[in-house]
């Protein structure tokens, strides 16, 4: 009898024998969506360079993906990815990291590279909390939620990361939750193909750090909550802010064509050479 092997297993680094994710973590769903998208596009991992920062989500490409992977420091993966894209413009550069990494400590690089519209795919796994360090409040933690650093309830406004990235000028922005694995996979495929800064926010359950404190506890309950609260962008279009309260607007929020920086750089170089003649 032949051994049964997961069809995506060929993408996993041979030295990896286990995952560091907690039971019920949404990382596994996102991992599958990324690899499925690459598989369905008929691409090889050698066409990519993956970059991550610090936090649970950053451990998806590092060490799981059998590819060139730069596991950088907290908050900076997009800045590293920019340098990699400059050196290897023909490669697909994908950043996989969390909301704390990309929108808190790394917020500046997120908005500026969205503004540059430099071609890369950024997958932001938003669990609304700092999971790895034990459940501290972050800029995405909803008001009122009790965390280890907001024991009396969070008293700050929270970021809508996708809207932030849209405002900064990205040419592709989508938001899904871990309930939407198929839609997420389709959007990742589009993002990989996009000539521009493509950002995907995935709301993902952290049953251990967020679930316990928000009162939703288990992974299944959290995903059920995502399912109930999610509303497609078309349906949400005509509704008031009051009607959209507590809703998670999902879908491809922006998909447009605009000048991409790496291509603009090639034009600039041509001008520089022309001028020097």
């Amino acid at each position, binding site marked *: 009898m032949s051994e049964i092997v997961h069809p995506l297993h060929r993408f996993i*680094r*041979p*030295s990896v024998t286990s995952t560091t994710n907690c039971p019920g973590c949404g990382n596994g769903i996102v991992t599958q969506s990324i690899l499925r998208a690459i598989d369905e596009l008929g691409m090889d*991992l*050698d066409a990519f*360079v993956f*970059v991550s920062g610090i936090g649970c989500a950053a451990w998806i490409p*590092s*060490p799981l993906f*059998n*590819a*060139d*992977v*730069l*596991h*950088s*420091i907290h908050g*900076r993966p997009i*800045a*590293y*990815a*920019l*340098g*990699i894209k*400059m*050196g*290897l413009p023909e*490669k697909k550069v994908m950043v996989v990291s969390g909301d704390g990494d990309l929108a808190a400590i790394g917020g*500046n*690089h997120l908005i*500026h590279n969205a503004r540059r519209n430099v071609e890369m795919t950024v997958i932001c796994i938003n669990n609304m909390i700092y999971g790895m360090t034990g459940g501290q409040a972050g800029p995405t933690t909803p008001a009122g939620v009790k965390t280890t650093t907001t024991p009396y309830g969070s008293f700050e406004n929270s970021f809508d990361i996708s809207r932030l990235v849209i405002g900064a000028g990205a040419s592709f922005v989508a938001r899904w939750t871990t309930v939407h694995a198929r839609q997420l996979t389709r959007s990742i495929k589009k993002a990989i193909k996009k000539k521009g800064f493509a950002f995907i926010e995935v709301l993902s359950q952290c049953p251990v750090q967020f679930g316990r404190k928000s009162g939703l506890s288990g992974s299944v309950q959290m995903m059920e909550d995502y399912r109930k609260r999610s509303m497609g962008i078309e349906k949400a279009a005509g509704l008031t802010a009051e009607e959209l309260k507590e809703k998670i607007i999902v879908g491809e929020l922006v998909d447009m064509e605009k000048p991409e920086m790496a291509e603009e*750089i090639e034009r*600039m*170089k041509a*001008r*520089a*050479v022309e*001028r*020097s*003649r």
Partner: protein
Amino acid sequence: MKAERVLAGRYFMMGNEACAEGALAAGCEFSAGYPITPATEIANRLAERLPQLGGVFLQMEDEISSIAAVIGASWTGKKVMTVTSGPGISLMLENIGFAVGVETPCVIVNVQRGAPTTGMPTVGVQGDMVQAKHGSHGDYEIIALCPSSPQDMFEHTVIAFNYAEKYRTPVFILSDAFIGHMREEVTIPEAEKIERVYRKIPPQGADPQAIKGFLDEDVAPMPVFGRGFKAHVTSSCHDETGRRNLIDVSSLDMFVRRLSNKILKHKEEITLVERDYEGADVVLVSYGSVARAAAAGARLARDAGIPAGTLRLITVWPFPDHEIERMAGTASHVVVLENNLGQMYPYIKAAAAPFAEVSFLPPRLIGQIQDPADILRKIKEVFR
């Protein structure tokens, strides 16, 4: 301007411009930076010249992203550099530690200015000497060179690139506002007379699982991205294959020790000094802009019949204690001169004190290089 990588010829050139030309002559292909006085002219020149040569200069959102983009580009096999001053280095330090930890060739130019904090941007000091070595967290070794002239700004930048490539490590140029903004004659040699070193890379088609691309004290070949090496590059404690290990303390010991030994083992070949102390009883030890005043002071002393000499450190890190010991063994008095309150002095004193009397001559005013007349007075004082 001609679109040639090496602008061979004789020029009356600013130190910062000579630094940019040195980078290009060494083969720099990518640079990213954030504007800061007194380093800006280097970035300006690279922004003009790099695109003509097929390279890129990126104006970044801050110094943190500048060094990050430079390190990222280095992992694609490019020769890279970033330029800044003290406040920018302070922002870059965490990423510089990353570059050390994952063994990334890159050149970091610090045109030092009056500090701490915003300080006095157009005045040169030597205030970031120890920061370059110890600024990022943890034990590590770094290479740092101290130019004393615009000509040095050219030559040392070439050497910095070669060291970065050879030892797979960040290399600092520790200049200051005086040298950066000084204009002097600069001779740029013909391209074929400039030595260029390129990092070792594993052979094409090498088995990704078999590549030991890290932690070799004799410098591992760098499994750069885009060539099918499937490199796993992590800032976490890792082994020779790049595989993370967060449990075994012996793995951490190897991670720390081998990275440091990679530099220390090659200290003698990295060390560059200028010795002019034969027969000298009093030896002035200095580096960078202050070395110019030290040379003048020693000349005054010799004219006055005092056997004085100089030892100029070009390589300050790894600290060349062997050169200090060698010098101190032949002298009675060692006088250390720096344009700060004594940053390298404790290191120099520790190495020289077993052999000679050691003292420090600070500038009268921080930011004003020692007057040769004051240096002569100090020499007479110790020589009595």
